[in-house]
């Protein structure tokens, strides 16, 4: 029943193939379950082998999920991901939102909490919205919503009076949003701040003063290329310098 692969943790390049070990003894009494393997980003199926299509580190999550962890700057929309978008146009009943992808997404004015045809949400051009993808595939125009499946906002919607929006790589954003994130816990000990993280590589920061906001923005942008030790050293230096 174990699907194991020796190449987990190795750096793989596009075109590399790998397959899985089959069990050597097939029992005649116990029914054989077919093993399903879930391919994540960076892997494609080719017959019964998996072919790598992006360069990166092969990761594995129990029981049967494999994906390639790659460093990328350009965002490709996927259903269910929450992103920070900028409203660029209002055409009829729909807002056009730029999220950094290959085309703009549409956001209906009814997709806000408590919005009806008479009670329109207060959204202007240039506003920042935190929204989730409802439709995101390669063939259709992406569609965003600011409510979850039960109709509640759940933190989504228009935000951002003051504060600073900047771009980072997608890998840093995933590290920030991971359940036990070292970067986030290091940041908590610095200054109190408000942070909105979009999976399209955009982060919005607001802190007590403009200087602190800029410091946090610079720290996050430089944390991309540092190891954990260097990052902790830098954070400690900033903490001592500020107080």
């Amino acid at each position, binding site marked *: 029943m174990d699907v194991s692969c020796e190449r987990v*943790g190795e*750096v793989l*390049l*596009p*075109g590399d193939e790998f397959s899985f070990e089959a069990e050597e003894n097939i029992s005649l009494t116990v029914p054989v379950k077919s093993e399903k393997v879930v391919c994540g980003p*960076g892997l*494609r199926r080719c017959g019964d082998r998996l*072919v790598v*299509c*992006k*360069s*990166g*580190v092969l990761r594995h999550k129990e029981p049967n999920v494999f994906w390639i*962890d*790659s*460093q*990328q*700057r*350009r965002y*490709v929309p996927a259903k269910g991901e929450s992103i920070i978008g900028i409203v660029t146009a209002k055409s009829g009943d729909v807002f056009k939102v730029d999220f950094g*992808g*290959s*085309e703009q997404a549409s956001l209906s004015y009814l997709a806000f909490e408590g919005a009806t045809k008479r009670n329109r949400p207060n959204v202007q051009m240039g506003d920042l919205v935190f929204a989730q993808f409802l439709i995101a595939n*390669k*063939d259709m125009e992406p569609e965003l919503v600011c409510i979850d499946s039960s109709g509640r906002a759940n933190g989504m919607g228009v935000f951002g009076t003051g504060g600073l929006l900047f771009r980072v790589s997608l*890998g840093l954003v995933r590290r920030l949003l991971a359940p036990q994130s070292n970067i986030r816990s290091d940041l908590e000990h610095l200054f109190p701040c408000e942070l909105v993280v979009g999976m399209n590589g955009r982060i919005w920061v607001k802190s007590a003063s403009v200087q602190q906001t800029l410091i946090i923005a610079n720290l996050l942008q430089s944390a991309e*290329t540092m*190891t954990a030790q260097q990052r902790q050293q830098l954070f400690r230096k900033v903490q001592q310098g500020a107080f």
Partner: protein
Amino acid sequence: MEVCGSLTVSLREFGCEQSLLSRTDGSASFVQGDTSVMAGVYGPAEVKVSKEIYDRATLEVLVQPKVGLPSVRERSQEQCVRETCEASLLLTLHPRSSLTLILQVLHDDGSLLSCCLNAACMALMDAGLPMSCLFCGVTCAISTDGQIITDPTAAQEKESRALMTFAIDSAKRSVLMSSTKGSFSVHELQQCIAVSQKASEKIFQFYRDSVKRRYSKSL
């Protein structure tokens, strides 16, 4: 730089660097001896309605020479690079988007087209665009006395009677693109292809080592 009896293939020293430009989605610089090319990739991004293709991405390649404006020679180099990239990228995953690849020639000391191909492949990998296989470029020159020289310098290219560039893919070592100049026999062409396939092994191993070094911090 020279080959005797096609037993050993020697290439000039090469080096590369990834992610050196800050505003592009992917970038790389490739150096072969004294020839050096920098590549930048943008994509998948918005495309003009007149250029969009309904079921795959539109790939645009621009080659900028070191001095002057791009001319017909750069246009033919662009076509060679574009055909190679279209054969190895999975363009159907990003319909109605545009991918732009810009190659800047920093110094030309021979084997320019193969250096452009290598820089392009590293930049596409750096940008995270889905590819079905890698590709590399190898240039061979046939001198006046029939010797095959791989990775020739500009001086060797001038004295040769034939110059060939092949793009080799990593999956089956097959030829994706060939660009030839001069006169040669069929037998010499087949020899050059065999020599290029052998040289491509070194280049692919170099790709693997440099990507491994890049990801070593996060392992």
